[in-house]
């Protein structure tokens, strides 16, 4: 049987149809911050169902970590694109036309568009109060600061950084900026909702988080969770975009009012108004002794979560605990703030915050290496964590192979032959901890087996990997194991399909499920719970039950007249532990690396006074086949090792490796994406700097740390941030 993906017969959420269904469209605020004075939908033609804020005012607030969302923006809109009304009509065209008949009057309010500005005293508030969610996705202590735009603050306090910097012979300091990005899955968001005769809500939606979604929808409508059913068709890509409540609440409300099923499929430009990747400003100070031993590191992150927090607190936390890097550092201070702005909401995006802090951290390593006159590889090797070392969270590292990954990446790009135009990066990234996974295996009468599992398929191949693992345990051919689309009525609980956790967690749950099946004969259940978590005020505890690890090397040349980077090759060495589905694992590495080229070189959402100016696939580019350099990778395995998720690991190191490759040629870039214009600016500065150096040599001396002037923007003021 040919694969349904090559015949075109695969059905995504956007292809689901029910008789009598209506098509929905959403009316969105044109202003980034405004009060809704008046909304009049009386002119909407008959036959069109309208949802206005009054209709949803009594529904509960929701939000996976902070409960800051309502089904429609009731009285106040907080970003240009915030849904204020919605309609459903027999055709999409009629629904689109009907939006023109809704008249809304707004009173504009002051707005803020930068996370550093948003924490200043005088910044307008996006939300007056912060309500912590009870959703399972709020799995760590939330630390919102009421009366400010900070909805979470994560800290690491390890040792004493003042002492640490005192002991340093050399300190380097720099501030980095990473632009927002759009996941741009090829399939846009799509959801279809229907209410059964007895008041049960059923939703077909492309989602990575069926149980979190079910919980939030139940909460919105005041229903017990088992009165809500989520069915997950495979997704045409997601990368974090299709998580938590996106369209589902609006579609469910329309369906309830219409008494008919209602389906919404977003237009492409609406994707930029739904969920994006967090822009961030990260400042790093790093101190070391003259032999390269690192002694102190201070990191501050300002994470722009947009108008609604979504899982921004979790992203800020992950960004925070990835920022020290895979190194032994006795004194570490991290402050990571998740900050509201009046921009579209930001949420889970492949890498989950790690990319932004790894960019800053690994670029700073090369600044330090240059100050010390050391080989950047040697500097890293001197400080890397090994099994038995403690991380700055207090946890002991186990099954870590950072050195091996880094050496492999360096070898792959011929580091020992010459270092001109080459750069390295090594990283650690955590996996959702704590988390819970459960799975059921049913034996059918015809010697086949059915897996009941909430893991969602978005192209990452999780269903195939889990089937292969089950087949191995059951000692049957994988063709005899089926894995239907997750349906919360039929599958047991799973935390969610994020964080590259599914193969690892479900693989372990399968072991006990199959054992259970052997005893029961018809049905076996298995559950695995990983405990852990970090104290958000000290950053101590267990950040991750195991670590995602990797390294990358890049070789580039630069057209110094235009700033255009030509990436000649990239290589990633990723620790896999044990590979279950080899082609799937290769595809995940390759896919992460290709996506990272966009992050590194040209992907960035451009806002102007809160308006998204490049919300289409022409003004916003994603990598095409012709953009590929020589791209190689390897999967490191160890006999008897646990499966290590790798759906994201190869993404964060590539931009830093490219940035470090530029730095090897004296071009110091602090911002992502490294567009030719940004690179040309850096080239200009480096020639200013070298003429400053020559004037130094001819006259005055200076003890200024190696500090490059940044593109003019407001710099974070740390005076007010000390706790």
């Amino acid at each position, binding site marked *: 049987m040919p694969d349904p993906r090559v015949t*075109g017969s695969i059905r995504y959420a956007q292809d689901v149809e029910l008789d009598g269904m209506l098509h929905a469209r959403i009316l969105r605020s044109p202003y980034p911050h405004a009060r809704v004075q008046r909304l009049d939908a009386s002119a909407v033609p008959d036959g069109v169902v309208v949802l206005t804020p009054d209709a949803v005012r009594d529904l509960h607030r929701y939000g996976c970590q902070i409960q800051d969302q309502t089904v429609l923006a009731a009285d106040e809109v907080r970003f240009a694109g915030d849904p204020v009304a919605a309609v459903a009509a027999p055709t999409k065209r009629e629904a689109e036309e009907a939006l023109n008949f809704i008249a809304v009057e707004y009173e504009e309010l002051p707005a803020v568009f930068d996370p550093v500005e948003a924490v200043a005293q005088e910044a307008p508030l996006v939300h007056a109060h912060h309500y912590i969610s009870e959703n399972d996705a709020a799995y760590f202590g939330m630390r919102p600061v009421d009366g400010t735009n900070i909805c979470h603050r994560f800290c690491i306090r390890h040792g004493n950084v003042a002492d640490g910097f005192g002991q340093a012979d050399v300190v380097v300091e720099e501030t980095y900026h990473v632009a927002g990005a759009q996941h741009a899955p090829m399939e846009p968001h799509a959801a279809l909702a229907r209410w059964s005769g007895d008041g049960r809500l059923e939703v077909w939606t492309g989602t990575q988080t069926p149980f979190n979604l079910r919980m939030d929808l139940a909460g919105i409508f005041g229903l017990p969770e088992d009165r809500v059913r989520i069915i997950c068709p495979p997704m045409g890509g997601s990368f974090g975009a299709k998580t938590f409540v996106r369209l589902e609440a609006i579609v469910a409300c329309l369906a309830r009012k219409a008494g008919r099923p209602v389906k919404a499929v977003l237009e*492409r430009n609406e994707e930029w108004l739904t969920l994006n990747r967090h822009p961030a400003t990260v400042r790093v100070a790093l101190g070391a002794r003259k032999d390269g031993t690192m002694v102190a590191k201070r990191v501050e992150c300002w994470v722009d979560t947009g108008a609604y927090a979504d899982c921004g607190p979790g992203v800020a936390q992950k960004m925070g605990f990835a920022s020290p890097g895979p190194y032994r550092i006795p004194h570490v201070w991290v402050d990571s703030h998740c900050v509201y702005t009046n921009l579209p909401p930001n949420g889970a995006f492949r890498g989950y915050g790690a990319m932004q802090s790894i960019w800053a951290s690994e670029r700073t390593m090369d600044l330090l290496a240059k100050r010390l006159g050391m080989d950047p590889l040697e500097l890293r090797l001197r400080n890397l964590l090994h099994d038995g070392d403690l991380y700055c969270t207090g946890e002991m590292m186990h099954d870590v192979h950072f050195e091996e990954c880094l050496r492999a990446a360096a070898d792959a790009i011929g580091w020992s032959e010459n270092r001109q135009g080459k750069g390295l990066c090594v990283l650690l990234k955590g996996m959702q901890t704590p988390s819970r996974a459960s799975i059921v295996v049913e034996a059918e009468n015809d010697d086949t087996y059915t897996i009941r599992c909430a893991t969602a398929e978005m192209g990452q191949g999780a269903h195939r990997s889990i089937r292969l693992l089950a087949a191995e345990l059951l000692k049957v051919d994988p063709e005899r194991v089926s894995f239907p689309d997750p349906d919360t009525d039929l599958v047991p609980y799973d935390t969610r399909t994020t964080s590259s956790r599914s193969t690892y967690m479900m693989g372990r749950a399968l072991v006990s499920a199959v054992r259970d099946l052997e005893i029961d004969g018809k049905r076996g259940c298995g559950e695995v719970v990983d405990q852990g978590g970090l104290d958000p005020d000290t950053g101590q505890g267990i950040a991750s039950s195991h670590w995602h690890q990797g390294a990358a090397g890049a070789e580039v040349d630069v057209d110094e007249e235009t700033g255009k980077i030509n990436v000649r090759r990239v290589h990633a060495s990723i620790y896999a532990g044990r590979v279950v589905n080899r082609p799937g694992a290769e595809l995940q590495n390759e896919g*992460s690396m290709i996506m990272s080229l966009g992050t590194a070189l040209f992907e960035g959402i451009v806002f102007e006074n809160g308006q998204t100016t490049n919300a289409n696939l022409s003004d916003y580019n994603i990598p095409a086949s012709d953009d590929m350099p020589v791209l190689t990778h390897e999967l490191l395995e160890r006999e008897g090792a646990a499966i290590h998720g790798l759906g994201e690991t190869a993404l964060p190191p590539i931009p830093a490796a490219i940035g470090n490759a530029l730095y090897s040629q004296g071009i110091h870039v602090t911002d992502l994406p490294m567009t030719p214009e940004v690179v040309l600016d850096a080239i200009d500065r480096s020639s200013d700097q070298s003429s400053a150096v020559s004037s130094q040599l001819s006259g005055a001396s200076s003890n200024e740390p190696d500090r490059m002037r940044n593109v003019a923007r407001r710099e974070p003021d740390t005076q007010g941030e000390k706790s």
Partner: protein
Amino acid sequence: MKIHFTVNGVPSEVEARPDAMLLDVLRREMRLTSVRETCRIGVCGACTALVNGKLISTCIFLAPMAEGAEITTVEGLGGSHPVQRAFEEAHAFQCGYCTPGMILTAKDLLDENPRPSDHEIQLALSGNLCRCGCYVKIVEAVKIAATRLTWLHHTSSGTSRAR
């Protein structure tokens, strides 16, 4: 207005507005879901079909312009076309959303250039976006298909084949 065309060998007549795009007609009227709506501006290739043997972005192709045309979508390749098989063999897809467009574009390339270099393959496919990032394996798939098609051409034209 009524529009007549042949889709995957089957003559059809549809009723459509003159400002409908061929993409909508193929999806709604003809129930073909391999042509997909993604960017609506002709840049991503997920809506690709062959119209009179030429690759077209159906999302920006006004339906009346298809009058009298022969249209091929991936459903018309049967499932075992050498290009489809090569994609499966090379594992050249993840979510599968862009795959029909990739397959038709690869087929079109190989019809015109039976022995493309890696660079020529990358160039020919550069108008088909894959966010999952399967380009490495897609290039492999096209090379496998090229070899197979060349072999098939030789065998069908009676040239003796090496064993």
